[in-house]
């Protein structure tokens, strides 16, 4: 890498570079992992869409997609996307790239643990992909793996070895994420340079702080649940499996008062904070990029910190909104409904703060058209669109109809799939000069943005209509005997065409990424005139004494001086700053 140089290794062994503990190398490694995962996950979803639009057509080399094949696609698509794209990319890729620099540190606190975290996560991905190749193939229990389906191998194809691979992968992922989270927490607590008080940290760092706290709390619970499920499958225990079950005409287990609801509670205690783990870093990146391009504070700084923390902490007490129809106590449903609606408040505050930042923001010529800014605006757009359907689903009365319909699919794909992914695109375009010293092509970026935006809305908005019409999730085929849903078939085809458009638009991004890595326009040292410390000259970090005396974001008045040498000299005090041209 040109800008953020890796210290030269003292040995010539290539292994030392591959197993490096330097956070920039680990960031790239996580980035490669997330790219592989998103390509795999998107391909799986395109197979799903192909089948839904033309249920009777056959895939070349595979043949007919049977219902169990479809369910395997659903399961693996969900698992890969939620864990290996939407957790790895926001939480691990960008934090490893810029977090130490953003707090004025030279390296992470526990670099070896950080590297361990990556390799365990990579192993988890390998084990998960292996599920496709074990006898009977990938599991069919959904990414939520509800028992008894997930606890009994006889319930379906792929629920044998495939399900074991899934559980092993999730267990490894929990361990890897915990390693990364511990490293992040210790780094942010201890490695801040002089003057970098907690209230001077960039909002990205606050989001990673909150995310790491959430990860430390919830990933071990998923690990425990996965181990209990493994025990149910192989050691004859009854944590989640009730007695007297009849599977395929055979009475399976006599005794045991296991509770499938226990799995749901344990899983969703993890599962809901998981989506905040995905979205909080995306929000932090949005705040930072908005501040950069509008040359303003991203809303009141303390307010943004407070909302980040409250979204994170409130996210721990809303998990029951995934279980409104599970048969749990309706009073519990009421409590969870209240907390879920409450969490809409800090989220709305953030959105309004961003809109306030945009209003009358300093728009240097062309700033609006810069690709990172476009994708950030896309994030806000998707967050609003997906977020508005949240309070609808938060009400048990409405959720009893909408649960497990395409309405829910539309909701979370807009707010998790598209919003977080757009924020990841924004981060890629934004920090690309930091990684390579070059800019990605603006023209290709524009094509990528507009095609993706239109494609994504074309795919996911109609799903709300389908859901309101009652179309349920996870069904491989709704045409045929059910005439009511047969009328939705044109909608399914339209969604599929748009999905292929959306997928094709990502090829533009991949081409842009690969091409610009070595042949992009050479960027100046701080192409976006950013104010956060990762853009500081490397010599600044090489000095032993590093001190910060100002907050990271440019304020309204000072925006006028944003490009002047005087302001720059405040942020990067002489003599570390090279003389202004």
């Amino acid at each position: 890498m040109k800008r953020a140089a890796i210290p030269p290794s003292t040995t010539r062994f290539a292994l030392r570079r591959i197993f490096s503990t330097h956070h920039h190398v680990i960031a790239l490694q996580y980035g490669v992992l997330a790219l592989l995962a998103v390509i795999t996950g998107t391909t799986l979803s395109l197979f799903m869409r192909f089948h839904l639009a033309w249920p009777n057509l056959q895939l070349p080399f595979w043949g007919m997609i049977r219902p169990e094949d479809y369910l395997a696609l659903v399961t693996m698509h969900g698992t890969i996307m939620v864990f290996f794209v939407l957790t790895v990319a926001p939480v691990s890729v960008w934090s490893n790239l810029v977090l130490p620099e953003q707090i004025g540190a030279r390296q992470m606190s526990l670099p070896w643990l950080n590297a361990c975290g990556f390799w365990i996560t990579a192993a988890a991905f390998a084990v998960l992909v292996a599920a496709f190749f074990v006898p009977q193939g990938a599991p069919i229990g959904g990414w939520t793996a509800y028992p008894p389906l997930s606890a009994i191998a006889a319930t379906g194809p792929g629920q044998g070895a495939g399900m074991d691979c899934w559980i092993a992968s999730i267990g490894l992922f929990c361990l890897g994420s915990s390693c990364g989270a511990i490293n992040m927490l210790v780094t942010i607590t201890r490695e801040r340079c002089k003057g970098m008080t907690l209230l001077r940290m960039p909002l990205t760092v606050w989001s990673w702080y909150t995310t790491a706290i959430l990860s430390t709390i919830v990933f071990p619970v998923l690990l425990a649940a996965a181990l209990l499920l493994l025990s149910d499958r192989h050691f004859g225990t009854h944590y989640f499996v009730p007695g007297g079950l009849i599977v395929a005409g055979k009475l399976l287990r006599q005794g045991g008062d296991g509770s499938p609801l226990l799995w749901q509670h344990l899983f969703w205690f993890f599962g809901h904070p998981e989506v905040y783990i995905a979205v909080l870093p995306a929000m932090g990146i949005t705040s930072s990029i908005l501040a950069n391009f509008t040359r303003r504070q991203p809303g009141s700084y303390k307010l943004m910190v407070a909302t980040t923390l409250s979204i994170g902490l409130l996210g721990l007490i809303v998990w029951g909104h995934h279980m409104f129809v599970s048969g749990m106590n309706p009073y519990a449903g009421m409590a969870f409904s209240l907390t879920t609606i409450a969490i809409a408040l800090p989220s709305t505050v953030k959105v309004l703060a961003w809109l306030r930042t945009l209003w009358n923001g300093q728009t240097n010529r062309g700033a609006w058209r810069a690709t990172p800014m476009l994708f950030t605006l896309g994030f806000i757009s998707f967050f609003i669109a997906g977020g508005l359907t949240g309070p609808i689903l938060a009400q048990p009365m409405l959720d009893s109809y909408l649960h497990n319909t395409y309405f829910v699919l539309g909701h979370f794909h807009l707010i998790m799939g598209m919003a977080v992914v757009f924020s990841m695109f924004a981060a890629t375009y934004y920090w690309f000069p930091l990684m390579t010293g070059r800019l990605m092509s603006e023209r290709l970026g524009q094509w990528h943005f507009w095609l993706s935006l239109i494609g994504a809305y074309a795919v996911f908005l109609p799903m709300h209509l389908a859901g309101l019409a009652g179309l349920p999730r996870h069904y491989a085929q709704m045409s045929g005997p059910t005439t009511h849903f047969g009328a939705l078939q044109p909608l399914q085809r339209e969604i599929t065409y748009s999905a292929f458009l959306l997928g094709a638009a990502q090829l533009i991004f991949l081409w842009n990424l690969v091409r610009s890595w070595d042949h992009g326009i050479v960027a100046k040292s701080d192409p976006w005139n950013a104010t956060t410390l990762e853009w500081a000259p490397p010599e600044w970090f090489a000095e032993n004494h590093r001190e910060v005396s100002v907050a990271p974001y440019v304020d309204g008045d000072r925006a006028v001086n944003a490009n002047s040498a005087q302001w720059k000299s405040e942020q990067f005090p002489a003599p570390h700053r090279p003389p202004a041209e």
Partner: protein
Amino acid sequence: MPATFTPAPVEVEKKHTGTGGRPPVDRRPTGGGGDGDNWQNREPGKRGPREVLHRYRLGLFFGLAGDLMFFVALVSAFFVRQTAGHFDAREQWINDWRPVLIPPILWLNTLVLLLSSLTIEAARRRLFHEPDVLEEWLGLGRPAARRAMPWVIATLALGSAFLVGQVMAWQQLSQQGAYFGSNPSSHFFYLLTITHAAHLLVGIVALLAAAVGLVVTRKVEVRQILLDTSAWYWHAMGALWIFLFILLVFFQ
């Protein structure tokens, strides 16, 4: 009283605690350290001799917090199972939780584990005894490590005795007919104690590494970090055992 023991008024005003076994409390910039030194907020690299130790202690703390959540999940499964049941063919609510009687050896094991916490704390404090540490740092032998080693070995012995005692407890239970799969209460007894024993085994491995490190490593800081983190992990496992023990004895 001699003047030595009666602080003069100017001394009292200065709020000096003197050298009665404690470092002087300096609330006024007195010069040494220079330039408005902010002892509480030094930058990384200048935070004193225990900077790296504090980093690892903090990492251990967050790791233990995650581990605690792991046990929270298991204990919540415990409580759910305790009250779970079903309706049988005669519409009667059947709850099959029969509290299992704790093998009496568990009380002895608890005592042994508490003693081991005391011994590892004794070892830890000996490794941080400043005069000995200074000698080690100067290269004049290893008095601190030499004094700590017997206590580490005592902890290893007591920890192993605890694990042996746990195995005996499991054997006693299975002799009474309470197996892993027989009754939910016995099942959870085994689950919680086996999980705790597995964590304690990790602690024993860490202590072994610390003991080997006392002999093999070259930097006194590394020895202190190894033993300190192992000791705090050991204390955490002791506290966790107390919690699990109270759960199994009083909350079945």
